[in-house]
């Protein structure tokens, strides 16, 4: 081991019983920054992962959509189902409606699903909170949970659904009566926006509401477990007629995912400031060390040390602190993630806010999905910042003239 590395280690962790106080503070600073980054990015990715999971669960990996309603449903479905990599497909209709109960209007999205085939694509049952999907028929609907609350309509109640065609009919002096539907279930995917604005009904109900006849708006596709969603989407686009396009769920939700990612990146860079501050604390304690040890630096020159190696001795200290802090931060961060729910529930219980937590944030458990890319980025930033923090102290040490350093009081 070169002497500067040996001495760097010894100055950080002196022999004997002395507790390395400066080192501990610097390392803790870096560790805290790293731990916070790991916890926050993992939880945010956990939310994102949950949403992705939910999207794929309810709509399949690939969606086939057309600019105009698709007429030749049977033939298109046939083509889709025989495309390699496709496991199942189910047609749907989708559009805005007005729903009313007790004169309270709402404007949710109505999704008409094909009861015969929907189960092969979407795992909707997993998200049912009350009632059953099996009870759904042409005269009934399933409401998403927040929508149900704002309508004040629960299983057994009746609601009225007004079609957008109403307006057109009015122009030709026709009267188009709203449909009375029975609520047979509540649905909750755990996402505020979706849970406040979706109604599920049968495909036939949807076709009637939107005046489609036998046409549909699109087809949800479930791919085989070993298939690649982009490859399947590309294959489908080869066989589908013009004007009909297959998109992966990532393309469908592009804006949404982009916003989610942006939010995560912003958080990452804001929290990176903690690591930056920690790096400054590494720098200041090393600068103090350079002053405190000026005479020893002079001695090292007298022993024959090269200037470059003296500088490296301080760079190495910064690097070691960065490395130790990063490792400690990773351990600490993952430990916090492991007991995250105990922590959250503990705090909520302490504040008597467990209900609020569930209602406001719609989770009873905090998700976590650490991504390798986030972890690598965290490690790289914290080690690079800490090592850079060593440059100024190293430069100060290297600049000392041996004779003046030895004379230093």
């Amino acid at each position, binding site marked *: *081991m070169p*002497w500067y590395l040996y*001495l760097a280690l010894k100055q950080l962790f002196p*022999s*004997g019983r002395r507790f390395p106080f400066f080192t501990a503070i610097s390392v803790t600073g870096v560790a805290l920054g790293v731990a916070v980054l790991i916890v926050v990015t993992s939880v945010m990715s956990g939310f994102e992962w949950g949403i992705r999971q939910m999207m794929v669960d309810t709509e399949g990996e690939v969606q086939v959509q057309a600019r105009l309603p698709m007429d030749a449903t049977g033939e298109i479905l046939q083509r889709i189902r025989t495309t390699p990599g496709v496991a199942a497909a189910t047609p749907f209709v989708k559009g805005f409606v007005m729903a009313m109960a007790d004169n309270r209007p709402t404007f949710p999205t109505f999704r008409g699903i094909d009861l015969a085939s929907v189960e092969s694509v979407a795992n909707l049952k997993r998200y049912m909170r009350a009632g059953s999907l099996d009870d759904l028929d042409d005269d009934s609907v399933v409401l998403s949970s927040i929508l149900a609350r704002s309508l004040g309509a629960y299983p057994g109640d009746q609601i009225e659904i007004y079609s957008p065609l109403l307006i057109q009919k009015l122009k030709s002096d026709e009267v188009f009566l709203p449909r009375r539907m029975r609520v047979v279930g509540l649905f909750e995917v755990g996402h505020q926006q979706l849970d406040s604005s979706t109604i599920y009904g049968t495909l036939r109900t949807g076709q009637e509401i939107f005046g489609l006849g036998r046409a549909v708006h699109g087809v949800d596709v479930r791919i085989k477990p070993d298939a690649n969603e982009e490859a399947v989407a590309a294959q489908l686009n080869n066989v589908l007629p013009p004007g009909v396009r297959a998109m992966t769920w990532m393309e469908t939700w592009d804006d949404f995912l982009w916003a989610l990612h942006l939010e995560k990146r912003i958080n990452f860079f804001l929290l990176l400031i903690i690591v930056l501050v920690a790096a400054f604390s590494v720098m200041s304690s090393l600068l103090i060390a350079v002053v405190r040890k000026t005479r*020893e630096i002079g001695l090292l020159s007298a*022993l024959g040390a090269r200037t470059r190696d003296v500088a490296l001795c301080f760079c190495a200290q910064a690097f070691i602190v960065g490395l130790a802090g990063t490792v400690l931060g990773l351990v600490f961060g993952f430990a916090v993630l492991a007991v995250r729910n105990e922590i959250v529930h503990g705090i909520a219980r302490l504040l008597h806010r467990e209900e609020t937590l569930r209602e406001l944030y719609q989770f009873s458990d905090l998700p976590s999905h650490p991504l390798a890319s986030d972890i690598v980025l965290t490690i790289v930033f914290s080690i690079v910042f800490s090592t850079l923090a060593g440059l100024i102290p190293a430069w100060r040490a290297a600049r000392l003239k041996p004779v003046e350093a*030895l004379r230093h009081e």
Partner: protein
Amino acid sequence: MSEAVLTAQQLRKDYLSGDRRIEVLRGVDLAVTAGESVSIRGESGSGKSTLLNLLAGLDAPDGGSLAWAGAAARAERRAAFLGMVFQAFYLIPEIDALANVLMAARMVRSPGVAERARAKELMARVGLAERATHLPGQLSGGERQRVAVARALMNSPKLLLADEPTGNLDEHTGDAVIDLLLSLCRETGTALVLVTHNAAYAQKTGRQLFLREGLLH
């Protein structure tokens, strides 16, 4: 005549203090041969430390030339060529006595079994075999200076430069350190340049010089 270990010719050193130029060394000539011991005395502020630092290559002279064993003095050669002992002991406080001695070896190469054995032997030779694992803070002044002597001799240097090594020690301890220094240098054939105030110590060296008005007499 035996080989020259150190040859200094017309060494000059000036310091600027404000806008006044102080000529500390005005052309010092000094030749030290192998195994020889030389003492330098002089009043406080006469430039003894300045001269020793120039001889060690720690500072650049404003004029003159310096050779170590006949070749130009270069910083890379210092670790293997010479050892230094100072008034303040300058031990590294974070590592134990033995590790401080080994520190000199580390400047040349990563220490192996041979270096460790030699460091232990030197610790024994300076009478500190039992204190090898003590930190500098746990040693007395005299003990610290003896560790510094062992460190200075670690790389079997040709030359040892000692700058008032007894300045921080009481008389009794100082005597012991000087005797140790002289006998070790004699045993190992190391040339010694000893800066001291003490006439009695100077008498023990082979050649006594005085630094006065920037010149060696």
